């Protein structure tokens, strides 16, 4: 059953099985989209629920000749925009990462990389998250749809209802701004890591799984490297 067929059943017969099929197929992509756009994975869970509630609520307005995915992306994007505006109005900061976020959640202790490797990966991820949140929405949304959701440029243009040329220019500008933010931060991070690797007695440096010797990540030099710089955009 295609998405459009399932949606037709939901629309005409309130078919709960067809709706469950759609939710099962799309809940993970929608959650990822909301998390990347708002920078908050837990808020994304709520936004995902709200998106599917909105889909059911607006089922009668779905055009039978339209693509379900395009319609669904639009609903989710609009909810994300509303949420970002609410955050901005309330003066909340979405720039707070959950300590438990990252690669290791849900895995067994024996499957995880060494703690220092985990910490470095989490800090790199946090830099990227913050950098994306610094981008204006129009650039962030095209980057997220293309890179994380793997939509084609033509599909992005269709979802956002803008010409494909505009998508291209926004992607180019977004990448240029992102590069200006990330390059110096990652350079600082690497410098911090190298300094820590080269300092301290060798017998205290336990090799990690990928062969690199870890450093003391809580040292002041590394912390300096991890400080997020706000770039004028």
């Amino acid at each position, binding site marked *: 059953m295609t998405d459009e067929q399932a949606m037709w059943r939901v629309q005409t017969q309130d078919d709960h099985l067809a709706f469950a099929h759609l939710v099962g197929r799309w809940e993970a992509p929608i959650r990822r989209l909301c998390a990347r756009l708002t920078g908050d994975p837990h808020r994304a869970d709520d936004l995902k629920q709200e998106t599917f509630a909105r889909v059911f609520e607006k089922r009668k307005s779905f055009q039978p000749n339209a693509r379900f995915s395009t319609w669904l992306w639009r609903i989710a994007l609009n909810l994300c925009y509303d949420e970002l505006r609410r955050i901005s109005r309330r003066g909340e900061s979405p720039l707070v990462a959950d300590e438990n976020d990252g690669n290791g959640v849900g895995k067994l202790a024996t499957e995880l990389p060494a703690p220092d490797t985990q910490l470095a990966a989490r800090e790199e991820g946090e830099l*990227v998250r913050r950098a994306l949140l610094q981008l204006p929405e129009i650039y962030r949304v095209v980057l997220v749809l293309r890179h994380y959701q793997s939509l084609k440029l033509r599909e992005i243009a269709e979802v956002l209802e803008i010409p494909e040329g505009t998508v291209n220019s926004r992607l180019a500008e977004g990448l240029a701004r992102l590069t200006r933010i990330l390059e110096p931060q990652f350079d600082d991070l690497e410098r911090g890591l190298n300094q820590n690797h080269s300092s301290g007695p060798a017998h205290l440096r336990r090799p990690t799984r990928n062969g690199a010797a870890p450093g003391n990540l809580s040292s002041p030099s590394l912390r300096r490297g991890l400080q997020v710089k706000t770039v004028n955009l």
Partner: protein
Amino acid sequence: MNHPKREEWAPYVFGEATPDARRKLAAHLQNCSECAAEIAGWQRSLKKLDRWCLPAPRVRSSRGSGRLLKWAIAAALVWGAGFGLGRVSAPGTADLKTMRAELEASLQESLASGMRNDMNADLKSALAATRRQITNELQTQLKLALADAANGSAAAGRRQFNEFIEVWNAAREDDRRAVFALLEKIQKQHAADYLSLRNDLETVAALTDEEIRRARQSLTQLAANRSSPIP
């Protein structure tokens, strides 16, 4: 040097440029260090985007959280027992470190294997339940669909048969009327033909009688003429 427009680079970087555009842009990159540096920076940024991994979705199942709580309580109890033992036996610093390392290792191992078994059992039972549920739902749907189809086809068949009978009866009535009209017409024709034939026969009979009478008269006259002498 003429640099390509900035938006031309987006399809190139994301692998969606046409073959011609790709060749043209790749050739430009070989000759223009400025553009090459910028595009390399973009490509590095795209790789960096993959460093941000999302956590697993929240587990809403009370059963799952119950399991986690159970393991957390077990870990706390074991840790508490270890701590109490340590306080009672009061070993030296070196012994304490060794004991702690051993306790950590043993706890990690036992918790990991226990949790793994538990999660496997949960996963298997959840899969079996889902499979049963889906099978039941599919069977129910199939039965309903078949029943609907059977009912629908029988009713439609009856309706079509009745329509056919009506049409057939109407056609038969028309045919009957046409045959009656034709028979009547033939009967009238026969009656007209009979009258005409009778008139003709009566005429022929009258003429024949007249001719016979004339012939007899002629014969009588002839006989009379033969019997009288010739002067």
